[in-house]
């Protein structure tokens, strides 16, 4: 007899055998197994063919423009879960924390440490709320999507199309886009606040050389005038590129998260369709990892852009 800690070897072996049996059944009733073995799975075991739909489906149609979609419901659920959970955790704050308060403190402290490591003590408090909110929102959206009632409970609409009640909020392009817009707004706000309007614009458009060229032109010095104006226009062009890059950030933010999350969901759907049992478990693990990484990337990039905006950069002012 194995009297060591944990399960005995025999129990582990039984669990492995049961899992393998389920895996085999799943493989057999899935489309690949059916084709290979030539058997027809019973109806209750067959998983419907996954259909990929990028725009979120409406649940409640208020009017033609205003539709409450399943992703909106999911994001409300995320907001409610986060707020209620943390309100509960921080209900009675004590100097010696109990378990729930410890949980909230763990999250806040690790995020704060992450931000402080990059931004330093002073800027961390400015950056913290938005970066932390982005992280918590994205990761909760991603993890909630792994719960069983996402994508399974739904309503049948006209034309026999199945519309799930909840769908991972991150797979609706409006969600990554809205977070990206918030990130963009805050980054620009920090830049404006720390530098002031004129200096902030000056950090994009370095007009010193152009001005110098024009004064040289009026003074009649042709050669420095030409080089000055030429470099001035190059700088102007670079400035437009810089502005453009700030807007590009929104798009890259949006599609990075949207693409990863949608691909993850489709992957899960397809694996679940091919092998209904067991085989999806590793992919769920993968999705947990990807959800965390995407949240970290979204928050981390916002953090980095915020740091760039907050630290006064002196290059480009030496002309």
């Amino acid at each position, binding site marked *: 007899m194995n009297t060591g800690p944990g399960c005995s070897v025999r129990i582990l072996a039984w669990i492995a055998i049961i899992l393998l049996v389920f895996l085999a059944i799943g493989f057999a009733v899935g489309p690949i197994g059916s084709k290979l073995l030539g058997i027809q799975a019973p109806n209750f075991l067959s998983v419907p063919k996954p259909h990929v739909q990028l*725009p979120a489906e409406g649940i409640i149609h208020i009017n033609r423009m205003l*539709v409450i979609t399943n992703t909106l419901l999911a994001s409300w659920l995320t907001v409610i879960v986060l707020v209620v959970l943390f309100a509960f955790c*921080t209900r009675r*704050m004590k*100097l010696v924390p109990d378990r729930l308060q410890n949980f909230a*403190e763990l999250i806040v*402290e690790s995020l704060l440490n992450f931000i402080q490591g990059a931004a330093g003590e002073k800027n961390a408090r400015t950056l913290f709320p938005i970066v*932390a909110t982005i992280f*918590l929102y994205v990761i909760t959206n991603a993890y909630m999507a792994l719960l069983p009632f996402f994508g399974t409970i739904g309503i049948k609409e006209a034309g026999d199309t199945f519309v799930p009640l909840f769908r991972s909020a991150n797979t609706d392009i409006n*969600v990554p886009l809205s977070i990206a817009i918030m990130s963009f707004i805050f980054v620009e706000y920090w830049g404006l606040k720390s530098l002031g309007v004129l200096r902030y614009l000056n950090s994009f458009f370095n007009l010193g050389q152009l001005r110098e060229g024009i004064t040289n032109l009026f003074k009649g010095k042709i050669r420095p005038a030409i080089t000055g104006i030429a470099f001035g226009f190059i700088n102007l062009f670079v400035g437009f590129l810089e502005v453009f890059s700030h807007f590009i950030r929104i798009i890259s933010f949006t599609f990075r998260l949207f693409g990863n999350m949608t691909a993850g969901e489709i992957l899960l759907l397809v694996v679940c369709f091919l092998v209904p049992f067991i085989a999806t478990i590793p992919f769920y693990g993968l999705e947990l990892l990807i959800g965390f990484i995407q949240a970290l990337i979204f928050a981390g990039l916002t953090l980095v852009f915020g740091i760039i905006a907050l630290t006064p950069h002196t290059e480009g002012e030496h002309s």
Partner: protein
Amino acid sequence: MEGIGINLPLLLAFLVNFIILFVLLSIVLYRPVLRMLDERQARIREAMEQAEQIKQQAARSEDEIRAQIEKARQEGQAIIAQAALMGEKLTEEARESARKESEAIIAKARAEIQQERDRVIEELRHEFADIAVMAAEKVIRETLDKEKHRRLIEETLKESPLLNK
């Protein structure tokens, strides 16, 4: 844009959603927890400073106590030495006074003895005189003059070297 589902009202809804989450989390999570973390940090720093102070104070008072003990020891030693000295002096004094007293007693005794001896000699002299007178009376049976006799005898006795001191 319609193909991937960008939808302005929905986008606005999500923006509002995010702002609501941001505000609520700020109220419910960030502010209380950060305040608590700061407070705890301040407390810990304070406590550590206090501990450092207490440690220093303890070291200082230990030094002080050691110095005091050393001082007390020295004082005690001094007192003992003084006491020993004093004791010696006292015994010396006592011995001296005893010696003096005994000497005085001896001297007094000697004087008394002398006195007694003188008195006895005097008495003896009287006795002798009386005896001699009586003997002379008996011998000569004739009492010439008692007073004359006595004087005679007394002179004789005074002349005798034995009874003269």
